């Protein structure tokens, strides 16, 4: 099942090289046209956010990258590979881990089975021991049914299982949604550790206070387009403008 090596163009792991480039991306669910020419790119080792109001098209952008929407046009280059014509199961093998908004924990699998489920896509993933060290709660509950975990634990599990696979680009959709402040803080610490490990991260977030200190750049979406890019350094001066865009 694992044919990652053959489709992978191995770029030197240089900081600053381009990991993801999205150009004029249009996406459709059946007849509904959701993304209208999305443009952005992410450098290796960067953490960027996709911000926006409800329905702006942030989740759809991540799904379009994974080829999980109906139809797509434009260009999505991952690690130097054009992926628009790729089958859905080939895309993660370029070294991508996807954490869906609804978490996607499997009820028919226990916690450890959920954790071991995603196939390895590249070498260099975290070992199961590293993962249990990072998420001690998961170790304690490893024999429980996946969906018996609390919301926070399920979110940890959804993150943890893609760290094992060796993915170097993580697409994380609303990982703090509905979680208690202590858990949100713990997730923030996890992201800092992942960044230190050189992971590239695209974070879809509602919780701007969570995202602000972590991110290098913010992209604001509206009506299926990127309407604004704000670097971390400009954040303080453009805070009011951003609040207007997000409607908060």
């Amino acid at each position, binding site marked *: *099942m*694992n044919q*990652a090596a053959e489709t992978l163009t191995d770029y030197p792991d240089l900081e600053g090289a381009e990991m993801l480039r999205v150009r004029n991306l249009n996406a459709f669910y059946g007849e509904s046209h959701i993304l209208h020419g999305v443009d952005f790119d992410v450098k290796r080792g960067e953490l960027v956010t996709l911000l926006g109001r409800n329905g702006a098209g942030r989740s759809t952008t991540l799904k379009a990258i*994974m080829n*999980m929407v109906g139809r797509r046009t434009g260009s999505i280059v991952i690690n130097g590979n054009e992926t628009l014509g790729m089958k*859905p*199961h*080939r*895309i*993660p*093998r370029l070294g991508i881990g*996807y954490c*869906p908004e609804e978490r*996607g924990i*499997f*009820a*028919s*699998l226990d916690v450890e*089975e959920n954790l*071991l*489920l*995603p*196939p390895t*896509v590249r070498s260099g993933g975290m070992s199961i021991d590293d993962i249990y060290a990072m998420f001690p709660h998961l170790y304690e509950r490893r024999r429980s049914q996946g969906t018996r975990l609390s919301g926070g634990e399920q979110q940890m599990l959804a993150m943890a299982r*893609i760290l094992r*696979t060796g993915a170097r680009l993580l697409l994380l959709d609303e990982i703090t949604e509905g979680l208690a402040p202590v858990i949100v803080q713990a997730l923030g610490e996890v992201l800092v550790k992942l960044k230190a490990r050189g992971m590239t991260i695209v974070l879809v977030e509602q919780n701007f206070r969570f995202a602000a200190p972590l991110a290098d750049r913010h992209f604001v979406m509206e009506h299926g387009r990127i309407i604004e890019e704000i670097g971390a350094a400009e954040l303080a001066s453009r805070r009011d403008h951003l609040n207007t865009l997000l409607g908060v």
Partner: protein
Amino acid sequence: MTMIFGVPLAVFMGQLMLGLINGAFYALLSLGLAVIFGLLKIVNFAHGAMYMLGAFAALLGLQTLGLNYWLALLLVPLLVGGLGMLIERYMLRRIAHLDHLYGLLLTFGLALIAEGTLINFFGVSGSSYPTPTALQGGYNLGFMFLPIYRAWVLLAALVVCLGTWFIIERTRLGAYLRAGTENSALMQAFGVNVPQLVTLTYGFGVALAAFAGVLAAPLYPVSPTMGSSLLIVVFAVVVIGGMGSILGAVLTGLGMGLVEGLTKVYYPEAANTVIFLVMVLVLLVRPAGLFGKEA
């Protein structure tokens, strides 16, 4: 003579044994249906035809190539399973994006074509397949006579059912299958080749039916209609057990065989309808089935 509720023990046990044997076939077939339904969401109406093709392939293999029973037991499921994979790959996959009702209709059509074609060549009367030499005869257990072949069928069916349960519940491939059943889009997003998994699953489910067909060949007349008559009962068994669980399919299959056997002892007139009676009752009281998850 020992009597059980006014029936001689030997008669009682004999009918129970017959019931268990029927139950073993119900179990094997409903297991395959459940595995296929889980991932493809298709009610495989061709399942009876695949069982029939299994028996026919064993018979024709013996008559034309001298293929012995043991080889048939190994090769026929592979052959019919391969046919199943072709059917999935080139027919079912083409309509997989449509309502699952279309898949049901397609498999129903295929079943009728297979049955009609074989009737055209071989008629409906049926031929007998010799019991393999090693499994002829029987044991006198004192309270009943146990034909060796029947004991073998029961054993083989149980081993295959438990093996299937083990693969699905305890292995990595089985975890893929269970997860794919829940959310195949996410499995693809993890890099699992779900279309390939679907093809293999259909092939495996169909191979189980063909295996049952080879097992059945020495017991029942091998005829083109042997599958369709059995399948109707198996569908009732599946409704009773619910599509939810693998073990549920096996236990319901065996249990319904026993219920049928017992009815034959005490009220033979109802033996052919008792399963449908149970089905109606289950639908009224617990529509998701005995082992199914309540919606």
